[in-house]
């Protein structure tokens, strides 16, 4: 134990100290160059370590992953498109994709709408009440998905018929004289997937609320007054004047939640481990990589995920360029 702590301490000191020394040396090296070369080389000395980290941990592995997706299980022989064809031909995997689509269709939109609703309503409380309400709604944001799934056991837990129920939902079922239900196994109307989505939404609404609330507060009062003078009702003012002005923030929130949902893993892994038709791309990938040990499938799944995310990536870059142009 003591050795472990000592090691961690050394890592902190060594990591920071080491980084500082590296930058100092790099800087000295650049300064030893003459004139124009110093100015040419120095930026690369400053940005170099970060670019190296990103290259080693994201760019190079991403290219390798694409490479592996065309190879067999151990990555020893190329198999062409076989991994992709096998996966897409598999009914189970198509079901996984369907589940992901369901998550994509429901979670980001609902998170935005709920966050917007709370933001608008909490805005009308006195400042103290507003702060308290927002903190409560925001708090789950700090909780890990594993923690959240553990917390929601107090709602979803199931004990066999006859035993005292320990989950709130089943206790309520009991009040109506119904038998307790193992909620995670109910595939009708994808109820189990929906219950898992509730956990994710619970952690994300606070984020959406905070961003949208600060956007609403930034809407100029004059524009709202002008609407009022023209005789617009509260609803009309909200949808025709406020919403268009906060639209960029709505998009930001939507995209952030969307990316989180596309690669969702934790909540499904912890609760059902993909059972009862709740599997998603992120968990299937983990399963192929770590349990089945089929590197080809795992890589192909991630490449498909990457392809699906590309439009978001393009949008993100375009948006950034637009903002830079406005600076």
């Amino acid at each position, binding site marked *: 134990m003591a050795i472990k702590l000592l*090691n961690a301490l050394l*890592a*902190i000191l060594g*990591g920071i100290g080491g*980084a500082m020394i590296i*930058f100092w040396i790099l*800087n000295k090296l650049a300064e030893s160059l003459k004139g124009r070369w110093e100015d*040419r080389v*120095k*930026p*690369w000395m*400053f940005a170099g*370590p*970060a670019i190296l*980290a*990103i290259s080693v*941990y*994201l760019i*190079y*592995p991403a290219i390798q*992953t694409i490479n*592996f997706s065309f190879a067999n299980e151990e990555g020893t022989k190329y198999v062409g498109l076989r991994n992709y064809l096998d996966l897409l031909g598999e009914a189970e995997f198509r079901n996984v994709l369907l589940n992901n689509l369901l998550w994509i269709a429901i979670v980001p939109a609902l998170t935005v709408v709920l966050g917007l609703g*709370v933001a608008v309503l909490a805005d*009308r*409380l006195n400042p103290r*009440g507003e702060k308290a*309400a927002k903190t*409560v709604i925001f*708090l789950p944001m*700090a909780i890990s*998905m594993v*923690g959240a799934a*553990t*917390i929601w*056991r*107090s709602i979803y837990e199931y004990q066999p018929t006859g035993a005292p129920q*320990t989950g*709130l939902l089943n*206790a309520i079922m009991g009040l109506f004289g119904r038998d307790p239900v193992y909620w995670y196994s109910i595939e009708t109307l994808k109820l189990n997937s929906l219950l898992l989505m509730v956990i994710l939404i*619970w952690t994300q609404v606070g*984020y959406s609320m*905070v961003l949208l609330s600060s956007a609403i507060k930034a809407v100029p009062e*004059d524009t709202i*007054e002008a609407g009022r*003078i023209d005789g617009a009702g509260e609803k009309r003012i909200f949808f025709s004047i406020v919403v268009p002005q906060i639209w960029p923030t709505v998009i930001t929130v939507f*995209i952030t939640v969307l*990316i989180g949902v*596309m*690669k969702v893993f*934790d909540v499904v892994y912890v609760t059902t481990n993909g059972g009862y038709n709740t599997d998603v791309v992120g968990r299937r990938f*983990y399963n192929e*990589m*770590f349990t089945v040990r089929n590197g080809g499938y*795992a890589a192909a799944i*991630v490449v498909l*995920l*990457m392809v699906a*995310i590309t439009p978001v*990536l393009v949008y993100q870059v375009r948006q*950034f360029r637009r903002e830079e142009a406005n600076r």
Partner: protein
Amino acid sequence: MSTTAASAQVATTAKVKAPKSKGGPGSASPLVKVFLLLLCCLWMIPVLGLLISSFRTRDAQFSSGWWSAIANPLEFTQWTMNNYAQVMGDNQSGVNMGQAFLNSFIVTVPATIIPILIAAFAAYAFTFMEWKGRDLVFVIIVGLLVVPNQVALLPLLKLYNQLHISGTFPAVWLAHIGFGMPLAVYILRNYMSSLPRAVIESAKIDGASHFTTFWRLIMPMSTPALASFAIFQFLWVWNDLLISLIFLGRGENTIATVALQGMQGQTGQGRELIPSAGFVTIVIPILVFLSLQRYFIRGMTSGAVKG
């Protein structure tokens, strides 16, 4: 608020017509207040359930729902601190939360502090230095913000296995440093480019090198952005499951989230420890979050997206 006299006049008359009841602080109708109160209660019910269960004995936990403890809180036989005492040491569930809790710190602190320094230097180069390829490299970083970490895991695991560093702390530190880097550079660069140019220019005229300007001027001025990123990264690393599961595993170096996940399937002895283990896992991020909320919100409103 700079309106012309005429429109200001109209505005006042309009205000008379529609008194302050519409919008604005303190204007909530009782219905809105009740609704928000209910929503807040609804939001906290699951957490309350966990907290109550974590202090109940095994018998109490399985003979009645946690809500019955609210009805009879004075039945002292149901309460115990024993779950926490057990979960922090060796117990029947085979999970030592005390050890895992400590490991979470060992993983999180270096993985939070080290990338800040590296990213700050890079952000400086992206903001205050002119160089060929700068804009292109930065656009690539912006694009990488949305790329899910999963794309990197398989090759990295192979690499780690070849180097025999799987399951060690440096393996996870490095991974978190790499994965957090695009966001760190992005947040810091956005902040630095909002700093007044004149300050840097005058430092240059005074003959200060880039290195001095960075340490003496830019780093101190960037504290708010450094804090925002630090909180983001701290929460992100502490709450991470996937990366630690793959690169650290379930051995003696396992962290709190992975340990808690491992307990979920527990059916026999040790099952009563799940709520207390859950609470141990979430308490640190909640404390960090509540005490530093301001910086966290500032980071979020700067338009940060993490893939």
